[in-house]
């Protein structure tokens, strides 16, 4: 089915990456003024903002849980974030991604510290190019930390998959469209726990295990970038004026 070659004779991918190489990733924490916490992630051509408000009063009220905070995630792609404009408003894909990102985040947030309240996470994909759910979860996790909400650890997310018969890391756009499989993973490096896992395509069990391991290893690297972003953020000083936002996109 795959006519186009995704991996060259030199073993390199269309964009020159090695099979187990990530796209360039840049993470910044504390990029917004109003949100209690925020983060910006550039991941290849993906550009993703995450904002966190909370813990705050639950709205609508009937969702309130008397034993813990609820975690509400809204993942959204900007109308202009992809080749064919997306009609504003929720769609089924965004609803599913919001749900699984929320479930992954909830695992690390100490929700029992904040009964009857809500942690609201807004993820806006400003530009999309394969892997936005991984970038979104990675950004959201930093934004929750930036909001000072207690967590057991950061969640990191990265995908592995298969193209041209090879297991590869962090699929780009054409690899995602034309490849044989995609396995996005949400991971907690310190404990080795998996909090998000999807797969579609076509893998043997051995290939699946190889892909999982590749993604878990990459998550460890991205984890360092997350922590570094938070470190830089606090070096600037959480109480001082926030990093000028105009640096976010430049």
């Amino acid at each position, binding site marked *: 089915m795959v006519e186009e070659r995704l991996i060259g004779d030199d073993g390199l991918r269309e964009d020159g990456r090695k099979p187990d190489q990530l796209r360039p990733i840049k993470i910044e924490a504390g990029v917004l003024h109003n949100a209690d916490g925020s983060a910006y992630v550039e991941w290849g051509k993906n550009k993703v903002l995450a904002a966190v408000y909370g813990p705050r009063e639950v709205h609508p009220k009937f969702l309130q*849980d*008397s*034993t813990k905070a609820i*975690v509400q995630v809204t993942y959204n792609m900007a109308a202009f974030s992809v080749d*064919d404009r997306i009609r504003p408003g929720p769609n*089924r*894909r965004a*609803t*599913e991604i*919001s*749900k*699984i990102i*929320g*479930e*992954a985040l*909830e*695992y690390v947030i100490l929700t029992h510290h904040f009964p009857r309240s809500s942690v609201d996470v807004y993820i806006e994909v400003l530009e999309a190019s394969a892997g936005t759910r991984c970038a979104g979860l990675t950004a959201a996790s930093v934004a929750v930390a930036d909001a000072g909400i207690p967590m057991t650890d950061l969640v990191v997310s990265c995908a592995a998959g298969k193209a041209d018969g090879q297991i590869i890391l962090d699929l780009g756009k054409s690899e995602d469209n034309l490849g044989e499989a995609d*396995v996005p993973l949400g991971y*907690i490096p310190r*404990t*080795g*726990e*998996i*909090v*998000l*896992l*999807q*797969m*579609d*395509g*076509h*893998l*043997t*069990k051995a290939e*699946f*295990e190889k892909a*999982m391991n590749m993604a*878990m290893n990459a998550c460890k690297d991205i984890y360092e970038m997350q922590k570094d972003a938070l470190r830089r953020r606090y070096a600037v000083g959480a109480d001082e004026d926030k990093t000028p936002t105009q640096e976010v996109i430049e």
Partner: protein
Amino acid sequence: MSKPIIAEIQKEQIRRLASEGKRMDGRGFEELRNLEVEVNSIGAAEGSARIILGNTDVLVGVKMSVGTPFPDKPNDGVLMTGNELKPMAHQDFSVGPPGPVSIEIARVVDRGIRESKMIDLSKLCIVPGEKVWMVFVDIQVIDYDGNLFDAATLGALLALHNTTVPARKFEVGENHKLPVNGWPLTVTSSKMDDFIMVDPVLLEEQVADARLTVSVDENDFIRAMQKGLSGAFTYEEVVKAVDVAASLTKKLRQKIISTGE
């Protein structure tokens, strides 16, 4: 505050049973419930299947019509999968548009069909860019006692395998069977504490920490996976769940193919 307390008591009971290797309904951790299937009972549908998995009761109907392809896929038929958790099926379901839980199930079933290539959508093209077959898979949950992922997937596969393309009605040739390949069946595992059980009933679902649905095809390829709920799995648990799914789907497939179709 009553709901969390009841959940805690249920959890305690299930935990006590599980620590002795038992489940509420006497099954083993890796044992599916009793399954009854019935195909094409709905005469108005192009294909249909009713799945009765324990006390979970799901009806899946397939309708086909002629429509226009998506602009970016001019040579492909269109597949649409819908799921509604009707208030008939459980006291907690309410009237209204599908919520996140319904949507997740519909999308997982849809990807299971789509990404396994069990339907070659390019064979559903009538006139490129103009006329293609639309395949609507509608899942209707009638009675809900857990594990809709597996019941709905099985219902969709059976309904599709028994679908007749209504070509005469749309004046594009003779009626014929929908070309469908393979049986990417799923098995769902549910985790509470460190106990992992397949095919959870509702009470087990309500206390579960995490859920993993694994789709395996007739060639032992893994075709799809979906982790759910706000708990975690270890790598080893995932690998184990894949093994269990591979073995249980194989048995299920044999049973379905020999009898159900």
